[in-house]
């Protein structure tokens, strides 16, 4: 990568060599960085390809798609009648994620507005650090909290038959996706030009009115992206939901029903199925589906963020 800005500082043969070396250095470093950048693309497509390849044998050879998507019956190892229906498992994933977002979105946006608009100085820094600390808690620890603390709590508070259920998983997922939602929303609010705030203040608006009527609409793309990335985080989470949702194949009719998610099904069953069997392949088909779902969510989030920049 030669750059036109590099000009010889001294005349003579020695500085020419120096300049030559500089150019080479620049070229090598530039190439390395470029390889780093493109390697992400290679890895993502590589992962997708291998996950897809493992499941492809079943996908194109005998998987009953109608049953796969519409039947709630997940009997991958039945001795008499094997059925691969993932409707209940998809419903489980969907229910947990939607409930998690019902909790996380208002909480996350509220926290972001408070941090960005109402707090200052020490409190602001303190809150930011604490919320980022949330992201550092390993998911198995969240799962353990679900198992040991939330389970008896839900039984007592809601008088539920069992505390390992969709609500338990959703609360954990809400807490886990909160740091993403808060930090990206806060960035989006910060990106709104100060002129908006000043103009609104000049019109006599209170700070609350400014936040709700001016900043939220102005930052809506960034906020939507924050929520979508939170959803992506929640749908892909495995360990905590495996431990906290009860892991029961069941189309939930209430938040207190136990459910099973797509990720947890793969985690619980993949390690111990015979490699190359139909059961093994169908888990990879679920993996491919999961990959596509998160890919679409992330892509949408990305396009929405791009929408901001065009303005």
């Amino acid at each position: 990568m030669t750059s036109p800005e590099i000009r010889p500082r001294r005349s003579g043969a020695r500085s020419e060599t120096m300049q030559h070396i500089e150019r080479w250095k620049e070229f090598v470093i530039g190439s390395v960085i470029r390889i780093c950048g493109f390697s992400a693309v290679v890895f993502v497509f590589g992962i997708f390809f291998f996950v897809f390849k493992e499941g492809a044998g079943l996908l194109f050879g005998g998987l009953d798609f109608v049953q796969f998507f519409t039947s709630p019956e997940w009997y991958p190892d039945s001795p008499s009648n094997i059925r691969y229906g993932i409707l209940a498992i998809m419903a489980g994933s969907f229910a947990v994620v939607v409930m998690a977002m019902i909790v996380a979105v208002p909480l996350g946006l509220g926290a972001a507005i408070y941090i960005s608009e109402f707090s200052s100085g020490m409190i602001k820094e303190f809150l930011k650090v604490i919320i980022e600390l949330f992201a550092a808690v390993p998911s198995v620890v969240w799962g353990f909290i679900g198992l040991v603390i939330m389970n008896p709590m839900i039984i007592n508070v809601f008088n539920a038959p069992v505390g390992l259920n969709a609500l338990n998983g959703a609360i954990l997922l809400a807490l886990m996706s909160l740091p993403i939602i808060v930090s990206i929303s806060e960035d989006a609010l910060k990106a709104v030009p100060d002129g908006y705030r000043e103009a609104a203040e000049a019109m006599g608006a209170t700070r609350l009115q400014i936040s709700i009527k001016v900043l939220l609409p102005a930052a809506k793309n960034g906020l939507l992206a924050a929520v979508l990335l939170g959803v992506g985080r929640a749908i892909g989470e495995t360990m905590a939901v495996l431990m906290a949702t009860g892991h029961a194949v069941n189309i939930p009719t209430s938040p207190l029903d136990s459910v099973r998610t797509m990720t947890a099904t793969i985690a619980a069953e993949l390690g111990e199925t015979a490699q190359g069997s139909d059961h093994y392949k169908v888990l990879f088909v679920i993996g491919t589906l999961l990959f596509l779902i998160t890919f679409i969510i992330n892509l949408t989030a990305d396009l929405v963020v791009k929408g901001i920049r065009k303005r």
Partner: protein
Amino acid sequence: MKKLLLLFIVFAIAISGCTKGAERKMIQNKGSDTIVNLAQAWAEEYRKVAPSVAIAVSGGGTGTGIASLVNGTVDIANASREIEESEREAAHKNTGKYPVEHIIAFDALAVYVHKDNPIASISREQLSCIYGEKGTCVKWSDLNIEVPGCSGQEIVRISRQNNSGTYAFFREWVLGKEGDFKLGSRDLSGSKDVVDLVEHTPCAIGYSGMGYKTEKVKTACVEPGDGKPCVEPTMATAISREYPISRALYMYTLGEAQGEVAKYLEWTKTEAAQKIIEASGYARVPKN
């Protein structure tokens, strides 16, 4: 968690083995979660007998253990069910040897309920009504039982992940070779997890090895059928095979055991090793 810890131990042993010299023999032992505690206790005791041999024990389920045996990566696979014909053939195809079976102990699967559950005895028909795909029992009142503290009297079925040997054995005993479990059970991935959840859940019913019984849970008295009186899951009834839901626990080797592995398996029949079986909550194999 347990798996990770075991992996770490295996690595630690492997590394310490390297530094002490190459003559230290490693025996890889993997499989059923039901057997993992017993195998671990044996491995520790055997170290005192034969310090030059290290036995690396890990769990993961019968399926995992047998899959590793088929791939030739373990010396001994622990199994809580008999090896299937297809697995025997796969092992022969892969390694040229047929797996050889060693019955090491007997285990009785206990039916666990919450300690407040008043149930006196349970029959195969009742279990089939609770667990079976075609079973209609969803409330404890369907069995004419009222469980104190259980909201809605709903039966909370607790089962195992579907590659567990315990899962397969219980399914076969309750529902026959062709039967399927009803969907919607909480499928946990460890024998101890089942007992822990039953302890904290008044509505629950679950099954697990009788070795996991604690003071805080109740085990149901199981009716063997034909109008015979129910049998409690105890050491004595497991040894006498009176208790109906009992099974053999196995170790499999590829071909006849050789060298250190053979010596180890021979040692497991000694009095010291047999005492550990009972300490782990299982029944010893009667001498013929």
